[in-house]
């Protein structure tokens, strides 16, 4: 049911002339994609600095909360750019992407990374007084930071593999993959 609905939404997006314009453009799609990838340096770059601090691997002489607060804004700027360009990439190729196993895993990982970040922030605000100045934060903080990096690494690789057609719906796949990719129309992605 949900899959039918999602595919319907994708078909509706696909029928819009802007979607076709981006998809068939000579450069626009590549530029959006390049912006999406290059913004990794801003968003993930800042996240790396913050998470490495939480792992005790960088800036041992600067309070953890200072690093997190000072880099929050540039990180969020990067995140917003990634979100907008990411949506445009989806908008340009909605039908295939909707039935993409990788895209679905990516969305799940994104949600997981979001929840992790939210919990992490709450945990940090509640306890940072006791360890803020420690070069190496306590274990639960380090686990949260490692989890954050692992989840975002997952987002990066699943984002990359959306472009591969290994497990597209029209291929012969194990039933489980059909189910996970939400294949409703097996031929939808074919030209």
């Amino acid at each position: 049911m949900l899959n039918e609905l999602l595919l319907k939404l994708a078909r509706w997006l696909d029928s819009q002339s802007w979607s076709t314009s981006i998809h068939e453009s000579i450069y626009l799609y590549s530029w959006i994609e390049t912006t999406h990838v290059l913004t990794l340096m801003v968003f993930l770059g800042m996240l790396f600095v913050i998470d490495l601090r939480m792992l005790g691997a960088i800036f041992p002489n600067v309070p953890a909360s200072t690093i997190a607060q000072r880099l929050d804004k540039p990180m969020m700027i990067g995140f917003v750019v990634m979100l907008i360009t990411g949506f445009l990439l989806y908008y340009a190729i909605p039908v295939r992407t909707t039935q993409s196993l990788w895209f679905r895993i990516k969305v799940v990982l994104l949600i997981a990374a979001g929840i992790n970040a939210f919990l992490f922030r709450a945990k940090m605000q509640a306890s940072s007084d006791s360890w803020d100045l420690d070069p190496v934060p306590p274990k639960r903080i380090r686990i949260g930071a490692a989890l954050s990096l692992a989840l975002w690494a997952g987002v990066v690789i699943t984002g990359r593999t959306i472009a591969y057609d290994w497990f597209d719906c029209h291929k012969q796949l194990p039933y489980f993959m059909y189910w996970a990719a939400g294949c409703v129309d097996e031929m939808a992605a074919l030209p």
Partner: protein
Amino acid sequence: MDLYPFFDWLDTSLLADISKAYGGVFAVVQMFHLLGISMLGGMVLVGDLRLLNIVMRDIPSEVVIENTHKWFNVALVIIVISGIFMSSAVALKLYYNTMFWAKMASLAAGVVFVYAIRRPLLKFDHATIKPTTLRMLAITSILIWFTVAASGRWIGFS
């Protein structure tokens, strides 16, 4: 100096056997390449934005620069190793790709800039360096690494 023999060798090396045959391995290596780029970008940006007085103004710029060195090195090593693996899949094609050479040139410039100029100069007390020089350093650094990354992405399109 013609590097063709190197690309010719790379094209038939063990690395190429793996990178051409296993798309999954290639994708994982590419993930490390992208993570390395992000890490390098983060270290460069944090340092440069500090030199431009945009972020972390309450932390001395010497401290910021000092701390980013190690992870910059780590990122560069990850990027180069994963990059060689990735290029083995299309070695001969790359040899004739202008963007690839533009990227290699800017990468070489970046490495020289970081290890021969930016680092040695920033070892001195930043207060004794002209503010204009510091700002020029930061702008140059951002420009070079942005060019390396952007031309790298563009290899795939050209």
